[in-house]
C-alpha cells in the first residue's frame, strides 16, 4: 500500500471493552479476565469517555502506602494482607481507581499524532472519540505495531 495516509481510522478497532464508572472492582476484574485485556475504557451512560482503568491502577491500591514508602518491608509483610486488601477493595467503585485524566484522539488524526501521545505519556491505550467526546474506537500499541509492519511490508 504505497500511498497510504496512516490515519487513526485505518488502524483503530471499533470494538472496545468498556465499563461504567459505578462498576465494582470485582466486576472490572471479571470483565478484564473474560476479555483477556489489562485495560478497559470507562464510559458514562452517554458513552462519553470518563476514564481508563488498567490493572496497574488497582494493583497500586492493593499495595498499602506504607509498603510503597518502604518496599523492602514487603518481604516481612504478613502473607494474608494481600487477600485482605483485595477483599477490602472488592466492592469499591472503579471510579476510585481509574485514571480520570485520559488522553484521547480522533479518528481523522494522523497515526503520528496518536503515536506521539503514546510515546510522550508512556501510555498503552488511546480511546478514539468523536467531536462530542463519545467513544468510537480504541488504539493501542499493538495497532501501532501493525502500522509499522505495514510500512515495512511485513505481512502478519
Amino acid at each position, binding site marked *: 500500500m504505497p500511498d497510504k495516509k496512516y490515519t487513526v481510522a485505518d488502524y483503530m478497532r471499533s470494538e472496545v471493552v468498556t465499563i461504567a464508572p459505578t462498576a465494582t472492582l470485582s466486576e472490572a476484574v471479571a470483565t478484564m479476565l473474560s476479555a483477556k485485556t489489562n485495560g478497559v475504557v470507562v464510559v458514562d451512560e452517554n458513552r462519553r469517555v470518563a476514564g481508563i482503568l488498567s490493572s496497574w491502577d488497582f494493583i497500586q491500591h492493593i499495595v*498499602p502506602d506504607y509498603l510503597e514508602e*518502604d518496599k*523492602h518491608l514487603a518481604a516481612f*509483610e504478613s502473607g494474608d494482607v494481600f487477600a485482605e486488601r483485595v477483599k477490602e477493595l472488592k466492592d469499591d467503585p472503579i471510579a476510585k481507581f481509574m485514571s480520570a485524566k485520559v488522553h484521547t484522539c480522533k479518528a481523522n488524526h494522523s497515526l503520528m499524532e496518536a503515536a506521539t501521545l503514546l510515546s510522550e505519556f508512556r501510555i498503552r491505550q488511546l480511546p478514539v472519540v468523536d467531536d462530542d467526546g463519545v467513544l468510537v474506537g480504541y488504539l493501542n500499541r499493538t495497532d501501532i505495531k501493525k502500522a509499522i509492519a505495514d510500512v515495512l511490508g511485513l505481512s502478519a
Partner: protein
Amino acid sequence: MPAMFYIAIVLFVFTYAVIISEKIHRTIVALLGASLMILLGILHQEKAIEGIDFNTLGLLIGMMIVVGIAKQSGMFQYVAIWAAKMGRGKPIPIFLILGGIVAVFSAFLDNVTTVLLMVPVTFVVTNNLKVNPKPFLIGTILLSNIGGTATLIGDPPNILIGSAAGLTFNQFLVNLAPASLLVTGVTLGLLYFWYRKQLVAAPESQAAIMKFDPKEAISSRSVLVKSLIVLGLVLVGFFTHSVTHLEGATIAMAGAALLMLLTVREPDDHLREVEWSTIFFFIGLFILVTGLEEVGAIRMLAEKLLEVTGGNMTATTLSVLWGSAIFSAVVDNIPFVATMIPLIKDVGAISGLPLLPLWWALALGADIGGNATIVGASANVVVSGIAGREGHKIGFGEYMKVAVPITIVGLIVCTIYVYLRYLI
C-alpha cells in the same frame, strides 16, 4: 509608642494566627509575613538577613541530606526488624523494644523522619502479630517527641535553641538526655499499663515474627557502610565541638558533601529530598521574630514575664517549662520557640538570672508538650495521616485520652528533674 510598634505586633500576631489556622501552607504565610515586615519598613532587608540563623539552616539541610541517603541503605529498618525479633515474637516485649528504638532513633534523626521510618515497620509487625496497630502508633508519636528532646539534633526547637544560645551537642546530651531517658521510661511504663490487655498474640503469629531475617531489609551494603562511616564522623564532629569549635552547620554540611561524594554522582535527587518548605518556613519565622525584636516588643514581653514571676528563678524557670508545654500542645513548637529565644535572652539581660536552666526548661516544655494533642507536633500529624489512610483513624479525643495524662506525668518528671538539678 510609635506606630511601627503596633504595626509589627499586628502583623506578627496575624501571621501566627493564619499559620495556626492551617488554612494556607505555613511556609507561604511565614514568607508573606516576613516580606511585609520589610515592605512596611519595620525592617531593612539587611537587618532581616542578619536575623536569619544560617547555622540552624545549614545543620538542618546537612542532616536531611545525610539521613536521606543513609535511610536508602535500609539500616534503620534493619534495626527495627531485628528489634521485633529480639522480642521473641511476643507483643508486649516487641511493643516496649520498638518504643525504645523510636526514642533512640528520634534522638539522632528528625522526629518526622523517625516516624516515617517506623510506621511502616509497625504495620508489618502488627499485621504479622494480628494485633491492633493503634497502641503502637500512639506509642510511636509519644516516644518520637520524647526521644527528640535528648540531643541538639533530635528536634528542630533544640537546633534553634542550641544555635542561638551557643550551646554544644554535649551540653544538650548531659543536661537533656537524662530527662529524656526518665520520661521515656515512665511513658513506656504507662503505655504498658494502658494497653497490656490488647497486646496478646496467637502462637502462630509469634512464629511468623521469628521467621524474620533482618538482613533482607538491607538494600545496599555499600551505601550502608559509607553511611555508617559518615554518620560516625558527623557524631564525632558534634562530640568534639568543645575542642574544635566547629559549628553544627559546618559539621553537617561537610558530612552531607562527603556522603554525596562517596555514594552519588548526581546530587539533584538528594538535594530535592531536602524539605525545602521547612527551611523556608524557618527563614520566614526568623525575619518575623527579628521584626518583633526590632520594635522592642520582645523586650516588653520579657519584662512582663519577669513582672509576673517577680524575677524569682524557680518561678521563672517553671513558668517557661509549663508555659512552653501548654503553647506547644496547641501550636507548632517551632514558631513558638523561635519567638521565645530572644525573649529568654532579654529575660537574662534584664534580670541577670542564669540562662542555662531556662534554655533546658524551654526545650523540655516545647518538645514534650507537643505530645498532648494529635496536632501538637509534626510527627503526630504525619502518623495520624498514615493511620487514617490505612483504616486506623486516630480520633482527636481518643488520642488525648491517652496522651494528655502521659504528657502531664512526663512534664511532672521534667519539673522534678529541673528543680532538683538546677533550682536548689
